[in-house]
């Protein structure tokens, strides 16, 4: 014998024994379609859609050789954002975000292996038509001890902020860079001709649809960050929910993006902000999904009485 539950106005309904009236669903759908089609066409004609061209490595390195060389040396010496990222790109002790003791990023491991020194610098250089100077520099660098490599890289990294571009060429003050200066000069030349774009994408073969490495390399640059800030797209400018230009972008991401604007996500939780924001959003989403079963939350409509506006004709009668 089943047990009869008590009536709960936040969960149950009384059977409707009132009147019915004609309601033409097919007509309603047709009218809605026409209205939305007209609105869409009007908005498309009036505002169009944004389409700023993609940044290429050629464009970046031509526009800012110093930034390119700064990024390239950080890839070679393992200090770039990608080189120190950890999973899913590479193994770096202690790298990766956590939610308390939960380190999902680390636990999942490396799925898209990226070795910045090999993939962004040494590998592409080895595919260029060999010049005696480059050949010699590559051989010397790869045959050197890690300490020698580190010393050359550190010296070059220290000098690069003082570099200048004269007549389209990157001029770095003299210093103990070993073969690194030759490597960087050839890589910059390769980049400004567009050959580096092709080399990084085509690492996987003739056909390429995976731009993970190219985007990580460009993403390490100051150039992309500056372009994003110029378009008001930085994380602290409500970031990726915006489009370039004055377009609405993805306003449905407002709550996700909101957390990146406020403490403690911007302060004490900053190192793990992404993971904590994701955890919070998953929790809120679960709450939204399960509202029908959560006492208190499911009572909000009854408490706020907005429903009396929606069904005002019914309650009036």
């Amino acid at each position, binding site marked *: 014998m089943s047990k009869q539950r008590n009536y709960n106005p936040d969960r149950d309904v009384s059977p409707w024994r009132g009147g019915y009236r004609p309601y033409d669903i097919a007509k309603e*759908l047709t009218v*809605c379609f026409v209205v939305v089609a007209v609105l869409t066409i009007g908005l498309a004609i009036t505002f169009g859609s944004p*389409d700023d061209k993609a940044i290429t490595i050629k464009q970046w390195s031509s526009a800012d050789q110093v930034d390119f060389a700064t990024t390239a040396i950080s890839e070679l010496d393992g200090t770039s954002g990608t080189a120190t990222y950890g999973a*899913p790109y590479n193994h770096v002790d202690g790298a990766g975000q956590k939610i308390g003791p939960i380190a999902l990023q680390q636990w999942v491991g490396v799925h898209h292996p990226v070795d910045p020194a090999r993939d962004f610098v040494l590998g592409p250089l080895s595919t260029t038509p060999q010049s005696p100077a480059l050949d010699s520099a590559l051989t010397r660098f790869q045959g050197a001890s890690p300490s020698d490599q580190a010393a050359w890289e550190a010296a070059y990294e220290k000098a690069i902020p003082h570099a200048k571009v004269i007549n389209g060429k990157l001029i770095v003050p003299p210093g103990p860079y070993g073969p690194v200066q030759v490597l960087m000069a050839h890589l910059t030349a390769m980049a400004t001709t567009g050959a580096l774009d092709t080399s990084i994408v085509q690492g996987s073969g003739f056909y390429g649809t995976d731009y993970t490495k190219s985007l990580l390399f460009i993403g390490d640059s100051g150039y992309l960050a500056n372009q994003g800030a110029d*378009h008001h797209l930085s994380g602290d400018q409500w970031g990726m929910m915006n489009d370039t230009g004055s377009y609405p972008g993805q306003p449905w991401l407002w709550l996700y993006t909101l957390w990146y604007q406020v403490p403690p996500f911007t302060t004490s939780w900053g190192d793990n902000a*992404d993971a904590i924001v994701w955890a919070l959003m998953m929790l809120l989403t679960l709450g939204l999904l399960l509202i*029908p079963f959560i006492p208190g939350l499911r009572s909000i409509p009854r408490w*706020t009485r907005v429903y009396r506006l929606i069904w005002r*004709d019914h309650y009036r009668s």
Partner: protein
Amino acid sequence: MSIRDRSVAPTTPILEEDAAMWTAKIRRSLVSTLPPERLIPDRQPSYLSSWIYMFGALTLAALSIIVVTGVLLSLEGPTWWHLSSVGLFVNSLHLWSVELFFFFMVVHLWGKFFMAAWRGNRALTWMTGVITLLASVGAALTGYVSQTNFDSQWIATQAKDGLNSVGVGAFFNVLNFGQMLMWHIILLPLAVIAITVLHVLLVRKHGIVPPIELTEANQGGEA
């Protein structure tokens, strides 16, 4: 008296010799669950008299325009719209129908929230609506990172950190254009459309939720 809003399913005649047939059983079950007069009704309860009810239909209309314009973009490939004024216009139609779709859907969601539309055994209807919203956010994100322009570069490099931080990026790589395009034009549209169909069928099965009554009562008197 029942406190749930139950439908009275009519029985469909079935020949005795066909009683064991799987096909006949499936048909009888489907028609019993959702008879034609409930699937495509021409009458609605008299309490259905607010503009807020339009937003479900407006959302469906916007979704249909998204699908049509998406199919048109697919005909010529992912970079066509950068090179052709017609392509750019179709892309603009696609973009604005998406913006309208989310606007209508969010208003629809808030409307249903304030109606407590999960009442009367309609929790699954509410949940399929929320899942449609989530799948749509994914479909939109994959669309943005498949545009093959500066926006897609920027959004992909920004979005990767959130996804990677919880391990999702290992399997759902927003930097991989090929993978994102497949998710955008096949997997997520299928998911959105399938869940939307289920959502609409559930709405039709259970009917429009009656007004909130604080006590159990026979609403509206005798019909």
